[in-house]
Structure formats: C-alpha cells, structure tokens
C-alpha cells in the first residue's frame, strides 16, 4: 500500500508541475488541481497508513490519526474554492485580453479602465 500511495503522490505532483510549466491558463489550472490532489493524499498519509481503523478514540486501539483527515478536509475546501476562483479569473482575463498566455510583457499600468463594465464584472466575481 505504501508503494501505491507514494507513487501516486509522486506521479500526481510530477504531472501537476509539468502542466504548470505550460504557461497557459487551462493546463496550469489543471496542473494546480493535480497538485492539490497530490498534496491531499500526502497530507492524509502523514498520519500513517492504516486500514479499517476508527478515527474516534472511544474504542480500544488501534486507531487511525484523526487530525490529518481534518486537515485534508480543510485543504480540499480551500483548493476547491481556489480552483473555482482561478477558473473564473482566467476566463475573465482571457475574454478581456484575448490571450491565455501567462507571461506578460512589461507594460505600464492602466489607471482608467472603463468604469461601468468593470464595476459590474468585479461585482459578479466577488
């Protein structure tokens, strides 16, 4: 079981990093999602791998460690929310600028974006 878990964490991380280096929003978002899976499995494994053990310490042992399960839940929620936000932001960026490249040339900051449209958009985003 250790081999399966370890290699799946490794594979997911490698695939995630590879996709992140593609520097276009869609592969990068998928890559981030893969990295989030990898880190959740890794977090879960940090409480040691046990099979069929209760996480509640009301029975006589052995137990599985309940804390990494709670941490993984927290991490899942955060990763889920962030992936959703990134997708929306990447979409807004693609529709506004017409490109999904992550690299950007060195431009001067804009100070007066179209007021009405942007207010509406950021309202939707928030």
């Amino acid at each position, binding site marked *: 079981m250790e081999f399966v878990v370890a290699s799946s964490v490794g594979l997911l991380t490698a695939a995630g990093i590879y996709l992140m280096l593609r520097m276009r929003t869609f592969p990068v978002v998928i890559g981030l999602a893969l990295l989030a899976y990898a880190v959740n499995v*890794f977090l879960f494994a940090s409480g040691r791998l046990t099979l069929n053990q209760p996480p509640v310490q009301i029975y006589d042992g052995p137990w599985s460690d309940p804390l990494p399960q709670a941490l993984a839940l927290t991490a899942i929620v955060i990763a889920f929310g*962030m992936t959703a936000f990134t997708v929306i932001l990447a979409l807004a960026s693609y529709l506004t600028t017409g490109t999904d490249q992550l690299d950007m040339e060195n431009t001067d900051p804009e100070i007066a974006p179209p007021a009405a449209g942007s207010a509406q958009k950021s309202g939707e*985003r928030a």
Partner: protein
Amino acid sequence: MMSHWIVIPIILPSLMAPLLVLVARYDMTLQRVLSLVSTTAILAVSVMLAFAAASGTVEVYELGNWPAPFGIVMVLDRLSALMLVLTSVLALAVLVYVVGTDWDKRGAHFHALYQFQLMGLAGAMLTGDLFNLFVFFEVLLIASYGLMVHGGGKARLRAGVQYVIFNLAGSTLFIFALATLYGITGTLNMADMAERAQSLPEADVALLRTGAAMLLVVFAVKGALLPVHFWLPNTYSHAPAPVAALFAIMTKVGAYAIIRVYTLIFGPEVAVTGTMPADWMMPAAVLTVIAGMVGVLAGGNLARVVAFAAIGSMGTLFVAVAMFTPESTLSALYYMVHSTLAAGALFLIVDMVQARRGTCALHVLPPIAQTGLIASLFFAGAIAMVGMPPLSGFLGKLMVLDAVRDHGGMGWIWAAILAASLIAIVGMARAGSQLFWKPHAEEFAASENPAAAKTAQPVALPVAAVLGLLALIVAMTVGAGPVTAYMHDTAGQLFDTSDYISTVMGRN
C-alpha cells in the same frame, strides 16, 4: 489570565466584512463609515495589546478552551503586538486614502475584501499553530486576489492571474511542508513542535530538515526573496496603487513568519537545522538587495520603480534576519517597520501621480496639477525608501550594517548594500526629475496631454494619509531610542523561547 481582547483583531473584521456585504451593499457612505470604524477599532485594540505585551508576558488565548497541543491557540507576545500595530496603522492610512480618492467606487465590495484582508493579516500574526497559519495565509491571500483585480482592466487581470497562480503553487508547497513536519513530530502547535524538534530520533532528522527547508521556501515566496521574487513587480505595479500600499505589509508577513518559525521552532541552537536557514538566506538576501535596486534604475515607470525598491528593502531586511542574533533581529524589526511605512507612502504617492498625469511612465509630460505638493511628498518618501539621512531608513540601514559586522562575508554584504543604495538614489532621483522637474524646463502645447489638463484632484484626505505615514517615519527617527528599546526587548523575547513554550503548553 485569558483575555478575550487578543482575538478581537480577528473577530471584528470577520464580522464586519459580511455585514458590509449584506447590510451596506448599496450604501457607499455607510460602507465607508463601518470600514473606518472597524479599522480604527482594530488599531486601538492593537495599541492596547502592544502595551499589554510590553511588560514581557506571553498571553495565550485558547480557542474553544481546548488546551494547547490539542486546540488552536492565539499567542500574543511583543512581536505579534508590534506587527498588529504596524498592520493596522498602515491599513488605516490606506483606507483614508481610498476613501479620499473614491478608489472604493471603482469596483464592488472593496471594503468587505479589505476587512477580510485585515482579518487574515491579524490571524497570521497572532496564531501559535502552523496549520492555522496556513489557513490565515489563505484568508489574506483570497482577499488580496479580490483587491488585486479591483477596478478591472486588461493588464491588471493578467497580472492578477499570475499572482493567484503563483501563490496557489506556494500554498501547495506550504501544505507539503506542514504534512512532512506533522508526519515526523506529530504536532502542529509551534511551541509543541519546538520541544519535539530538539529531541528527535536520528532517523527522522533528514525529513525534518526537508520540511523546514520547504517551509523556508514558502515564506521566501511571500517575502519576495530572490529567486522566488518575480511575482512581485507585476503584482505591485498593476494592482490598484492603494492596494499595493497595503500589500507592503504582505511581504512583511513572510518575513514575520520566518522570524517566528526560525527562532521558535528551528532556532539557531536547534541541532536538527543548525545554521541551514541562515546559510540559505544570506546569499539570497544579498542578491535580492542588488536585483531590487538595479530594478529601481531600470523600472521604466514609477509603479515598477517603487515595486523594485520594495524588493530591495526586503533584501536588506532579510540580510538582517538571516544573521539570527538578537542584535540583528532588532535591526530587522526596526527596518521592517520603517520599510513598510515608506513603501506604503510611496505607493500612495504613485497613485497621486497616476491620477493627475494619466500614466506613471517615466517620460516627460506637461507639469501635473499640484506638482509642488506631490513632488515634495515624493522627495520625502524617496529619501526614506533609499535610506538617506535624516529619515529612519538611514538609521535602519546603519543598524543592519552594524549587525552583520561579525559575519564572514561582511565585505560582500556591505559592498552590496551600499552600492545598491547608491544605485537606488540615482534611480529615484532620475524618476523624480523626469516626473516633476523636467516638465518645467520644456514647452508643451496645451493639447499634448489632455489628462494633465484635468482640474486639481481633492487633496485633503489623500495628503493627510501620506503625511500620516511620513510623520510616523519621522517619529520613528526622532523616537528611535524608545522604539529600539521595545524592539530590543522583542528580539530578546524571541531568542529566549522557554517562556513562550511553557506558557503555551500551560505549564506556567
């Protein structure tokens, strides 16, 4: 023993933010009033907490009354109190500026996001639990993503995507590091982990070092340490300038986390990590100083110039942090407070220039409205930022230089900091003369820059905000004695961890 005041800087903004969205959504005046009241109250509580912490006691707040290694604790010591006051002072000044310039009307929910940002910052500085630190990092980052793209616009959205993705990668690494540390030590409470790291079986040492190193990289990302600094210039120059002014504290959160974790858990005398954090950080910090200040010269527009100056100042700060002695930490704290105020003030000035000029690119355009006033503010801010006398940047740099006297590579560090300061002076002087001086030397047709022909902007609140920050810098210079005395005690408390650990673990 347990005072509920400790948790107020977290609870208050977290209640205020949903209130702003739900109750005050369509009423900008009410939003501003609530936001200002909340931020002022946080400042008042922070100052009160700082006075409470000044006596040297470590106060622990057990959330849900769960005792330390099992529940999450908030810990108030001198360092957290100092950071809280710094955060809330900067936040109040930036908020006054935002209200004075109508920046909050350029998009929805500015004030709610701002309150969530403050909640995350306060939480990150108060927590005594590593996973909780991660959660508060996420809170402040999520709010900052919203603030970063506030107002919209093409370049800002693209820079926002970069910023979000870079930080998400950083957060993933954060969890990897935490899971490694938890897997070995079986705890996430900083004080508990500090104890367990000292008595670790030989077989686990390598893994713990790996976890500590990963954590260092994560905090270096937040603190914009070379080579993971490259998110900063685009983010700071494309974010709304007042938001960039608030972000001046975000890099310091990285520095705070490094100071906290690598004195408390992996301190210099802990055998597991030894001098590893120092050995890694010092060269990186020196390179950061150089890269930042060269960037000041090559910036091309005022926002980037100031962003690179912020990177350079983080480098100077990390040079002091990387020494890990009480004296160097004292200088790091002084320079940290100074550079936060200076960077905040300068970003506000960048926004003043942009608003009147239509652009902050460094080519010569007709003189802007209120040019004398803004030029003098920029002059003062730039002097503070590059560390020239008479302002506190000079004192801070002097203390940093003095603190590295015992380091083996002292010659290199001094050469880098001093040369970089000279380059920064040239860069700032060039930027200032292009913006404020040369316009008076040339003749312009009236139609050449319609943006500059705009009538003068309201100045009362914005100038009050900038002057407030500059006044604090002056106060830090004049009152350097009492300020450094507090920081001296702070550094002493940081390196004497026994009191912190025993208080958190409930043995006092």
